[in-house]
């Protein structure tokens, strides 16, 4: 009962925090950072469903992010599609392509998905660079319109901030409902033992495909939001380093923890802001985080935070108990 109240309050708290944050920011630059952080949060929640829960690695997630961003951009500019139609097409294409990747690579047990997605990421990167007449090539694709829904254009950063974080909250809620259902349990079962999961009636291949396509869909949502915010896309944003950054967010935040995905995404978005020094070797930092986390903190920041919380809580209780005892005497 008590925990239920706490949980509902946590939601309220999250809403309030998201709504109030822009009011207390020192300047608009941080709004941009938070918008980007929101996009990464969406990406990392989706990837955590796949990696943290189902235990399947994708090393090409930036490709799904980029595919939808380019699709909606190109359709809006080159083909003059309405923005909403381009967005739907972007989401559909990324999901469809992820399905086509999933079927051959997830048919097998083992690490084929990791390599398959890594290869796929490389292919997409090459195509974005080479198909110059369609994508604009290495210099990118410009002039993408701002997001507009039903005649309402979201042109200011503040408006866009609310759009992005509304999407974050919605996708977070859906993910949370997923992980606390039979499907969430089945995915975690697949993570430890596909054999036992299938012996209990879990159609492991179907579930793996489903969660892979779902996580690609999340990436695609982030992609279309990116395209209509920045209004410019270039291949560099969607290459291998981005895919690795996403994996690092999941690992650092904590596998199989949705709050961890949020923490990891925000932390790694803010880190370069605080630590300009790492600009040139950020990738080294990611490598170190990956190795050290997996070796010494497999639960990531989420587990660390949980432990710290529990410790301070028990400390607090002890103090309270001591005070009570003192009062009684």
């Amino acid at each position: 009962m008590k925990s239920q109240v706490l949980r509902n309050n946590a939601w309220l708290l999250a809403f309030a925090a998201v709504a109030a944050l822009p009011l207390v920011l020192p300047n608009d630059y941080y709004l941009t950072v938070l918008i980007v952080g929101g996009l990464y949060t969406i990406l990392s929640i989706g990837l955590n469903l796949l990696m943290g829960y189902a235990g399947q690695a994708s090393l090409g997630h930036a490709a799904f992010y980029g595919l939808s961003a380019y699709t909606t951009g190109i359709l809006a500019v080159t083909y003059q599609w309405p923005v909403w139609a381009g967005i739907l097409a972007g989401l559909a294409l990324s999901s469809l392509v992820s399905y086509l990747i999933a079927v051959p690579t997830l048919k097998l047990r083992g690490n084929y998905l990791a390599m398959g997605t890594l290869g796929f990421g490389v292919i997409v990167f090459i195509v974005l660079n080479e198909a110059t007449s369609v994508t604009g090539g290495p210099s990118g694709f410009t002039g993408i319109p701002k997001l507009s829904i039903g005649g309402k254009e979201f042109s200011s950063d503040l408006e866009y901030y609310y759009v992005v974080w509304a999407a974050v909250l919605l996708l977070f809620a859906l993910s949370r409902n997923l992980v606390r259902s039979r499907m969430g349990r089945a995915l975690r079962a697949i993570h430890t033992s596909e054999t036992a999961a299938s012996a209990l009636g879990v159609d492991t291949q179907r579930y793996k495909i489903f969660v892979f396509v779902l996580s690609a869909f999340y990436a695609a949502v982030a992609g279309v939001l990116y395209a209509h915010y920045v209004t410019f896309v270039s291949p560099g944003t969607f290459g291998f380093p981005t895919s690795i950054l996403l994996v690092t967010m999941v690992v650092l935040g904590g596998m199989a923890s949705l709050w961890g995905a949020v923490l990891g995404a925000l932390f790694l978005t803010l880190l370069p802001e605080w630590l300009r020094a790492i600009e040139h070797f950020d990738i080294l930092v990611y490598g170190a985080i990956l190795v050290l986390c997996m070796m010494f903190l497999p639960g990531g920041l989420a587990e660390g935070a949980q432990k710290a919380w529990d410790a301070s809580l028990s400390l607090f209780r002890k103090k309270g108990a001591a005070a009570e005892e003192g009062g009684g005497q």
Partner: protein
Amino acid sequence: MPTASALLQYVISGATVGSTYGLAALGFTVIYNTAGIINFAQGEFVMLGGMLAVFALRWGGVPLPLAVPLAVLAVTVVGIMVNRVTIRPVRGRSPLTLIIITIGVSILLRGGAMLIFGKDTFALPAFSGGGPIQVGGAALLPQSLWVFGITLLTVLGMKFFFEHTLTGKAMLACSSDRKAASLMGIHVDFMVTLSFAFSAFVGAVGGVILAPITLTAYDAGILLGLKGFAACILGGLGNPFGAVIGGILLGILESLGAGFISSGYKDAVAFIIMLGLLFWRPSGLFGGSQAERV
């Protein structure tokens, strides 16, 4: 219509590059079959082989005939270290954990190479002088002969090791059943260390022999590793020598693709083949039908 000599030219240069893919693939299979790990840092071993040789030569002033074996030896030591420091402490954890760790290691090696050697591309001098040899209208670089010769020697050496020495046979035993192997008194830890050493060794060999032909840079390992893995899929992950053939075949297909279709999409060829094979024939061209295990 392509001429026969152009075709031959593509095949020769493809097979040369493909030899390195094959050696990278051999490295993948050695670790996979002994430790059950796909080592995502395999491409970095290849990159380091070429880079270390270049820098021994340039900065250390070491003559080429010494720089090459020295580089290979250094990478072998790196391979052993990688296992000792990052893999052994987490033995028995989930495959995903191991994947992520080897990815982290690959990034660290790549980043380290970038910090030390910078972002430029480098070339190693050819192992011997002399102009290209004309073969049926195609040019055969003397370095290609070095590549073929050294690849063949390495593969034969490995074959001898696995089939005719006690240690080699023990490593194969680990591959079929690690638990049983350890019960039979085989020191599995040592075998895994050895597999990393071998895999780094063959990877580095692949790197140094190719460096005079294709140039090398700190980030060359990503693609080399991926193509090595694609070669494994082509030849069968359980079949080390099939993987080498797979690598050569992949190199040739890639070269033909670049020559006749588009050079910009050259790097995509390998992955399209890989995805296609995963779909149609996951056990590789030379593997038997894959037995499902529990």
